[in-house]
């Protein structure tokens, strides 16, 4: 009797803790939707196409959307090939000293304070160029993205059963073919998950952009000019006393959240199906 009771109490305790862990997530989702949807309805489509208004006027967040997409795109362009190759290297040569070092360094990079990444990029790119730029922002985002993509790639590659590779070698395929046509193809889903998680992660980053991207409220500049970003805008706008700036910040948060969900939900659902 007592044992059953103990069992029940413990199970309830487990359920409660699980609930407490996900509670903040639901709170965030709820408050972003509750505060963001009225803003989108109030400002209409102009919210996505116009630039920052003066205090107490209506406007939109186009330069921020532009900047975020541009920098995430550039960061992916630079970072994904690099990170995937690094992940393949670590997975294919697990006992090499260099690959062991890379693996632990990647784990450290995951935890690295992103504001320091921003400062580093400021020193090596912003100062020599002489201006804040989308390129510098994208470079900082790329550094933040690398460890996610590389780690996911490595794990996906390693989860491929050895029999497939042995079979491929037995058929006389060279290592290049085995890695890229067999293993990578089987691990595709894991690798793509890694890419998307990396992209979603950096699209919400503020700290690496403060010292690199500069900011832009009303211009959509080229690669070498300062650009805005959705998280940067939220960060700056909530510090102002004006209601319309707070509204725009909530609306921007909702746009960011929708973007995030649009990337995540399809992956998760497709994972469940297989």
């Amino acid at each position, binding site marked *: 009797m007592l044992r059953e009771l103990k069992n029940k109490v413990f199970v309830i305790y487990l359920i409660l803790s699980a609930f407490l862990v996900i509670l903040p997530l639901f709170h965030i989702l709820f408050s972003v939707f509750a505060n963001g949807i009225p803003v989108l309805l109030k400002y209409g489509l102009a919210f996505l196409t116009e630039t920052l208004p003066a205090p107490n006027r209506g406007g939109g967040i186009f330069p921020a959307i532009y900047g975020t997409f541009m920098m995430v795109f550039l960061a992916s362009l630079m970072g994904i090939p690099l990170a995937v190759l690094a992940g393949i290297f670590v997975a294919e040569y697990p006992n090499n000293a260099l690959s062991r070092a890379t693996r632990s360094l990647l784990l450290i990079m995951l935890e690295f304070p992103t504001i320091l990444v921003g400062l580093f990029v400021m020193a090596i790119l912003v100062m020599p160029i002489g201006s804040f730029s989308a390129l510098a922002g994208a470079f900082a985002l790329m550094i933040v993205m690398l460890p996610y993509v590389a780690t996911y790639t490595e794990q996906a590659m390693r989860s491929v059963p050895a029999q497939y590779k042995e079979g491929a070698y037995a058929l006389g395929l060279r290592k290049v073919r085995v890695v890229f046509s067999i293993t990578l193809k089987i691990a595709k889903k894991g690798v793509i998950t890694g890419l998307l998680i990396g992209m979603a992660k950096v699209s919400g980053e503020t700290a690496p952009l403060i010292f690199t991207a500069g900011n832009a409220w009303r211009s*959509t500049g080229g690669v070498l000019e300062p650009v805005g970003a959705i998280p940067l805008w939220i960060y700056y706008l909530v510090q*102002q*006393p004006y209601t319309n700036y707070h509204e725009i910040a909530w609306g921007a948060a909702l746009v960011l959240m929708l973007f995030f969900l649009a990337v995540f939900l399809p992956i998760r659902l497709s994972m469940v199906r297989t």
Partner: protein
Amino acid sequence: MKKWIAVSGILFAVFLLGCVSEQNVAKEQIKIYGSGASFPAPQIENWIYEFSKVNKNVIVEYSSKGSGAGINDFKSKLVHFACTDPPAKESEWIEFKKLGEPLQFPFIVGAVVVVYNLPVDELKLDGETLAKIFMGEIEFWDDQAIKALNPNANLPHEKIIVIHRSDSSGTTEVFTTYLSLVSKDFKEKVGAGKLVEWPVDKIGRGFGGKGNEGVSAMFKQTSNSIAYVELAYALHENFKMISLKNAEGNFVKANAETISSAISASSAYVPDPKEGYKEDPKQFLNARGKNSYPIVSFSHVLLWQSYPKDEAQAIKSFWNWVLTEGQKHIIEGYAPLPKEIAELGLKAVESIRGE
């Protein structure tokens, strides 16, 4: 896999098209970048909005990240202009001089106000009493010192809760400089600075909030509290402000008129923009004048005397507009410059040359 390549190819093509069309537009437009103090940011946004209506060829971008960050960006020539609340220090000025000829002049005036959360409509305080409250020496709202200044007010016998900034802030610097000016005791025990140790924290009646918004939020939820914030916040949140005794013995509330009066009374202390570091913010506090509000402060802009030709033209047209037309588009919480100080800035802007 092929699908992915096709999709990313299309995306890339669209992106390139976007860049190309962007650059065609950019040829006629000149972009000016600025960064620095967050206090004047809403006013600058408003100016940019009005300015862009009359001048479509110049795009001005300002990012508010704090006075210190602005000065650093300016020193590294990452931005065309920087805004700073306290004037640049002499050591910073020497650094600028190594890179070119700097200019600094005030462009907007603001005020720090003391707000209270009490069911009392009107509260008068003088500097001395205010200092004692913020040091924790006055414990109750119905203290003799406060009663003497407000004989008709129905003050409750409640403990005073003091709310201040917990982060390093220009607002705190202005406020503590004022208190040090009017109270010797405060100067010795606390002193002036961006971040000070409030003695009232140690006796459990003082609490810190991060940023103007943090202080505002805490203040709203705490009855019997007193706090200091930027005027824009107090107006926006409809906080009750105290009437503060000025140098000539009158009790005044902060508004555009009393702030301008204070600045006009001490406009002689604004130095030549070419020697901007010589400004001493203390000289604008507790200013003379019957109608002067005692706690006012400037926001300053830093510019170079020479820029590449196109940029020089754009910078001149923007700052010229700010100091003339712009002074008519002032939003709630700020006050325009008196004419003689605006003239000083205009002369400096005129001296900017294109290379």
